[in-house]
């Protein structure tokens, strides 16, 4: 049963607004009294997911459902999709441009960070269509 649902649109290449969705999610979880360790895991996961959408995709959205036993995060974009998910999951592997990497992004740690913060982690990608991330973080 979903108790609270939060949905955020994320624009592609918008580095000024990037991080706003995850900051807002964190603020709301704090207000709700979610334990700080859980909040931290959600904050890291949503930030990485948000940055992935900004850096790599055509834009998308992040949805957070706060349920009784867990917080679920869904991040879905409008493509271009990931060619090789196994490679993308490797720490340090990145397809980010030099410009983006100069800003300190594109360390190749995004997906591995999300995975290490989550209790359940699912990623699905269809080339030319979308990438969808489903994550569960238990209380």
């Amino acid at each position, binding site marked *: 049963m979903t108790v609270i649902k939060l949905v955020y649109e994320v624009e592609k290449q918008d580095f000024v607004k*990037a991080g706003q969705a995850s900051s807002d999610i964190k603020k709301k979880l704090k207000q709700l009294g979610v334990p700080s360790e859980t909040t931290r895991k959600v904050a890291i996961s949503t930030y990485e997911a948000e940055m992935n959408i900004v850096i790599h995709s055509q834009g998308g959205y992040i949805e957070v459902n706060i349920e009784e036993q867990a917080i679920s995060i869904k991040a879905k974009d409008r493509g271009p999709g990931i060619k090789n998910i196994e490679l993308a999951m490797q720490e340090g592997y990145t397809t980010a441009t030099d410009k983006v990497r100069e*800003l300190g*992004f594109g*360390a*190749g740690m995004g997906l591995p960070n999300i995975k290490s913060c989550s209790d359940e982690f699912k990623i699905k990608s269809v080339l030319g269509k979308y990438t969808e991330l489903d994550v569960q973080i238990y209380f």
Partner: protein
Amino acid sequence: MYKIEKLIENLQLEIVSKNIDITDMNMSGVYIGDLLSWVMGNIKPGDAWITIQTHVNIVAVAALGDASCIIIPENAEIDESTIQKSEEQDIPIFRSNLTAYELACKISRLVDKK
């Protein structure tokens, strides 16, 4: 825990985000890093974060990683939007002419002496 006010005084840090009340703020440790994802995954709550990155996204990383403050070493130039954001989010930014290494050494001496 170490008072941020004392940190500024002892290290003679330049206060970049002026519209933040730092009176009751504390720091616990120090984290140095410029790769944002790496920092997010490894910084500890309360750490003072030393980074040479100065664009607006560092504020989100600091806020999400529960950093106590951001210290910019070597007098690097800071974007105006970064300063504005830091004041909105209550994450103070300081600046120093010292390198990250020199800052960390000095902070370590201060915190250990306490």
